[in-house]
């Protein structure tokens, strides 16, 4: 009797949550993509420069969590018609233009690593490491971009991570793993 009851409640919960985001996570749906994020993170939406609200043409949504550890990740989206016409209409070109926007918004980008490619749900993803320069510390990050035909936009996913903000000299060895984890949940229709 006890085990029947416990089994029924647990299986019922499992069934209710099949296909949903993992435990402790919520799913963001909008602007042509979906991605899971931890419920412990704070979400912010805005335009590429960080001054106004996002639009269907371009924008960003980011999630961050900071106590002793700092983690931030987010997605940029931009339609090709919103890109500067003198830039390459490729994921790599979109990335270059994005770093330009980020520079305008006041974030200091340090080194950008070599661009590499991988495949995600049939899309070719261009990705690279980068650093954000903050108070003399280089915070490592990772970013990747691809073109989503279904939504007709470039999607760019980034992640930065500081394991211990009181010891920022400890360089995160997890940025790539964290980025890949978020990439796995990012889908465009």
């Amino acid at each position, binding site marked *: 009797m006890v085990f029947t*009851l416990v089994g029924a409640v647990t299986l019922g*919960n499992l069934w209710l949550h099949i296909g949903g985001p993992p435990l402790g996570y919520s799913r963001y749906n909008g602007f042509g993509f979906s991605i899971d994020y931890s419920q412990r993170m704070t979400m912010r939406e805005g335009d590429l420069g960080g001054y106004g609200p996002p639009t269907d043409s371009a924008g960003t949504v980011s999630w961050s969590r900071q106590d002793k550890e700092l983690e931030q990740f987010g997605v940029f989206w931009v339609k090709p018609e919103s890109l500067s016409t003198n830039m390459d209409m490729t994921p790599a070109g979109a990335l270059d233009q994005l770093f330009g926007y980020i520079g305008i918004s006041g974030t200091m980008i340090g080194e950008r690593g070599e661009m590499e490619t991988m495949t995600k749900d049939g899309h070719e993803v261009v990705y690279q490491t980068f650093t954000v320069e903050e108070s003399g510390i280089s915070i490592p990050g990772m970013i990747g971009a691809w073109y989503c035909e279904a939504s007709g936009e470039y999607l760019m996913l980034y992640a930065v991570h500081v394991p211990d903000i009181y010891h920022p000299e400890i360089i995160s060895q997890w940025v790539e793993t964290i980025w890949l984890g978020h990439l796995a949940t990012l889908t465009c229709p």
Partner: protein
Amino acid sequence: MTVDRLGFIDFARGLVMMLMAWDHVSGFWNQVHGGLEGIYAYRNPSLDFPLFMSRFITHFCAPTFIFLTGVSLALSVKKRLSRGDSQRDISLHIIKRGLVLLALAILLEAPAFDLPYLYFGVISCIGACLIIFSVYRRLPVMAILAVSLIIILNHQWLDLGFISMDAAWGHYLRRLIHEPGFTLSPYFSLYPIIPWLGVMGLGWVFGSYLHGIGKDRISKLKLPLVATGAASFALFFVVRYFNGYGNLVRRWSDDILDWLYLSKYPPDIAFLLWTLGGTCLFLALGLVIEDRGWSGRGLAGVVQTFGRVPLFFYLTHLWLYRLRLPGVPAPFYLDLPQTLGLWAVGLVVLWLLCSRYERLKRRYPRFLQYI
């Protein structure tokens, strides 16, 4: 059937209290001590294997301690009932004990960790669970088993989003119920009530079972306990392998340390499978020691002494190992071997203090009944 004090339970409790002392001495004096598993989604990569494991082995403490609180509570309640105490008196006694724990957490535990007095740690959690148990215990044992298992297997889906965190009371309430964290001072919490109530409930069920069988049958529990512990460990690996249900902290890679980086705050299924599996093995070891006649002698006797006066041990060890006034930071840090040395010396002092306190408690049982 009434059973006297059970040495194997004291042994298991004493063993994890020694591990807990290691965790705290390490936290006080070792700068790179790990912690906050679950509040942090990723393990600290600066912790190498020995440092990571020196924290990991202490995970057995809180679950075993809280489980055995449930066991002892069940045995104590049955004993009081059998000697004719009224239900009302028993409930009042449990409530008083819970309130004493909450007061001690404010007065002695929080300042020992340099945390605000509203910090909800393991002592506060046990105090709150005891107050709940003063009423909850009246349910049939099978109902408590069902509720405990439902809590443990399902609490991960508990959505407290309907309680706004904008107001301080809402923030604190969520921290106390299910969402530990340190984001808004002074509303800090590490041991939320709901999941740990499930663990204490399992202890209550086990204690009720022990009460219902004789000492002879208790000594035959070795094999079932070992089998349960082994099954629990095996299930742990299954849950971690699938990396979904039962894991509040994802396994980000196949690195052994990622397999072992679990959510303690709050405790997820993987964490409880591992730690309560260990509890079963500690209890079985305690039974072996009793069978061999080693109980109360030598090292086993020292461990059992710690286990017989757990609250005194807990409060004393915090301040003994801290070795400085509240608010005073560590003047220097120790490396791992030095910390181990301090731990061992502290245990000797604690054994002397606990032995004396035990004698004192025997002499003044009424006066010292809550500690």
